């Protein structure tokens, strides 16, 4: 148990939806969520297929702990081939949708093909309907969710949907669930749009059972307690992830103005104090914190925008509260575009959720456009007359909206930084790996982060490894391969449980092990979990190789490798990728060309896999 032992396969071309048993052999080898979905993707499509074509498969996957009483049990992952990267994409989301999908009885939902006209899926346990989305096409994520709830007369319906950005193929369109939670990265929303699938509305009544309830509840009690008592958890609850802004500013790892700088003079206007500061007119950005399903951390910020702010003064439809700034949104709408107006940032965040876009990729793409603009490569004639200078808060919100609605220069921004910069002949200005934009950490200050970005299977990402402690301690680039490899494997495993990575503020592998072992039948020693993590990483790698990526894609933009950090603790340093990468390949059991060796594949049981 833990698993529902059932998956739902929808073929939008054929208009069919069929439940089938979960392949338990795969579940035992890949756990769930990220890992299991990657295995299903591998087995169900040609990695070389067009990411935006009908042969791509879009998978929504829960884990064995999704929907249980484990803290943070609301996670699900969207796994597909990502259009932004042409690599495997795995975007993980919280909120309440994932647990609901599991309660409807499914571990995984596989979506094949392309509907001839826009549709949405309505799933109530065994009842699955592919319904016309004619009334919803062109609507925002927020309106879509509202329409579905009221049409089906069910305020507890859970919805994952795309906005116009996803419909029109913005390369970093995301899938938004529960209004402001998103499977954000790599353009999984664009894949959904390419399938003419507007939304998935689900209601589950079947519940989830665990294998050994008493042991499980004991593990839950203890692990909840650990989280409750941990300082890291406390900080997440009180400040969200935004607390990071102060440390990165001090450290000199806060990417500023398209990574030209690593410290931002306006950081203190965007930090947790700024979010809680009461202004002379009584307004305070942060309202409260909010949890995803089952989460005892509640790092989510709920904020509102000052009604007198230029962005919404005449737009009362935005006067309500919604998801507020987290570190990555603060970075992507703040330092990297040089903006320090917290209301503008908050509004840009609203727009991302409302229209369904990844804030990181949008912000970093806008940053590249701003650099192009300041360099004179693009002008007002390209930008619909908007002055794209760093620091222009209005440019941020106007462009966010244009991109969300796929209008004017927003269509160019919707290409992502790599395609956009190539278009203007300045590819080096795209701060991305494999086409996916960096998160808010500079790899000259955080060397291991550089290695993590370069080797992440879904393109630049800060959530595919965790070597902060090592990175803050040692900026030499020595000995980074090990912590990166180990944490990549661990992260892949955690992402496959159905739980949130942030629990690692208090938990390590033994805590996950206890919960998995009690929830799932069979024996789950820690060694097995580690092996699963490594197996997933290698499978993802194989997917990418089969998709046409090579070791040459495991690299960073020249700015990271050649331009020394201008200030902060890493002043004068560049990222030592050339030193770290070979060491990493070796540790992984890969050849110099970055191919998993025969022995490695054999050891991980990946050999008999296809391709």
């Amino acid at each position: 148990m833990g698993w529902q032992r059932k998956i739902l396969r929808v073929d939008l071309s054929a208009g069919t939806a069929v439940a089938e048993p979960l392949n338990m052999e795969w579940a035992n080898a890949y756990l769930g969520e990220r890992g299991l979905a990657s295995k299903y993707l591998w087995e169900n499509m040609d990695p070389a297929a067009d990411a935006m074509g009908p042969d791509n498969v879009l998978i929504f996957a829960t884990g064995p702990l999704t929907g249980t009483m484990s803290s943070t049990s609301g996670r699900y992952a969207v796994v597909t081939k990502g259009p932004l990267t042409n690599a495997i994409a795995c975007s993980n989301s919280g909120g309440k949708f994932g647990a609901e999908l599991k309660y409807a009885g499914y571990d995984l939902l596989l979506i094949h093909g392309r509907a001839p006209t826009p549709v949405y899926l309505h799933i109530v346990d065994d009842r699955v309907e592919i319904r016309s989305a004619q009334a919803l096409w062109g609507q925002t994520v927020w309106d879509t969710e509202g329409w579905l709830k009221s049409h089906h007369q069910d305020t507890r319906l859970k919805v994952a949907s795309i906005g116009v950005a996803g419909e029109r193929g913005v390369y970093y369109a995301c899938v938004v669930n529960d209004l402001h939670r998103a499977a954000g990265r790599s353009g999984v929303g664009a894949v959904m749009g390419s399938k003419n699938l507007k939304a998935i509305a689900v209601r589950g009544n079947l519940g989830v059972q665990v294998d050994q309830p008493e042991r499980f509840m004991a593990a839950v009690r203890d692990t909840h307690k650990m989280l409750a008592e941990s300082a890291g958890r406390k900080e997440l609850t009180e400040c969200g992830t935004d607390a990071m802004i102060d440390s990165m500013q001090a450290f000199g790892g806060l990417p500023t103005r398209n990574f030209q700088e690593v410290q931002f003079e306006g950081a203190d206007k965007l930090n947790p104090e700024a979010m809680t500061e009461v202004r002379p007119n009584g307004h305070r950005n942060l309202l409260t914190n909010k949890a995803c399903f089952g989460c005892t951390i509640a790092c989510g910020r709920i904020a509102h925008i000052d009604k007198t702010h230029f962005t919404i003064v005449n737009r009362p439809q935005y006067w309500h509260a919604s998801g507020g700034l987290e570190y990555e949104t603060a970075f992507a709408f703040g330092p990297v575009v040089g903006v320090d107006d917290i209301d503008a940032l908050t509004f840009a965040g609203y727009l991302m959720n409302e229209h369904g876009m990844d804030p990181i990729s949008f912000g970093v793409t806008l940053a590249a456009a701003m650099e192009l603009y300041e360099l004179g490569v693009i002008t007002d004639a390209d930008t619909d007359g908007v002055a794209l200078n760093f620091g222009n808060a209005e440019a941020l919100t106007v462009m966010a909206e244009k991109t969300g609605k796929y209008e004017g220069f927003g269509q160019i921004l919707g290409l992502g930084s790599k395609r956009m910069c190539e278009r203007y002949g300045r590819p080096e200005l795209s701060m991305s790996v494999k086409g996916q934009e960096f998160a808010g950490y500079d790899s000259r200050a955080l060397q291991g982060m550089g290695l993590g970005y370069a080797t992440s299977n879904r393109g630049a990402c800060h959530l595919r490894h965790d070597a902060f402690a090592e990175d803050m301690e040692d900026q030499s680039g020595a000995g980074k391969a090990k912590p990166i490899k180990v944490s990549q494997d661990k992260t892949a495993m955690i992402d496959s449980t159905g739980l949130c990575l942030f629990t690692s503020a208090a938990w390590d592998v033994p805590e996950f092990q206890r919960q998995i072992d009690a929830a799932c039948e069979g024996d789950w020693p820690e060694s097995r979990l580690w092996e699963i993590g490594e197996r997933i990483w290698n499978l993802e790698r194989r997917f990418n190789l089969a998709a046409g990526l090579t070791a040459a894609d495991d690299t960073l933009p020249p700015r990271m490798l050649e331009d020394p950090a201008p200030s902060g603790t890493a002043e004068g340093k560049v990222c030592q990728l050339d030193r770290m990468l070979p060491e990493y390949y070796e540790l992984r059991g890969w050849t110099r060309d970055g191919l998993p060796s025969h022995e490695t594949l054999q050891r991980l049981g990946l050999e008999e896999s296809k391709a």
Partner: protein
Amino acid sequence: MQKALLIDPEKCTSCLQCELACSHQHTGMFNPVQSRIRVFEFEHGARAIPYTCTQCEAAWCLHACPVQAITVNAATGAKQVDADRCVGCKVCTVACPYGTINYEAHTGKVAKCDLCGGEPQCAVACPTGAITVSDPDTATHAINPLLLGRGATA
């Protein structure tokens, strides 16, 4: 001892641990639709209110039941449903002005909060103290007791 749940919506993060704990206690499954406590969210989650039976004095459900399937637990004061006796007529569900006793199609019976025999699991599971157990003499319920024109009932 008469007990009741004291709910402070201000502290609720809508994590639904209470719904998970309640459903597990009563069904052995994690299944929020079968929870007798429900969290309602407002305005993109800016507010959330956990909501369940206040074990009200008037005991509307109990009095409406045609077959005495609802009784008062002597130890806790909880009004509880005897599932064996309940015929599933649902009259209690429309009689209770708080809407805290609900019909469950899969059992054909009604279900409500029974205070778990004295140790409400929702309160145990709540990570923020939004749900606590108190004795009703000192409790102020989040939801006003409704009088329904009952006048001077002692």
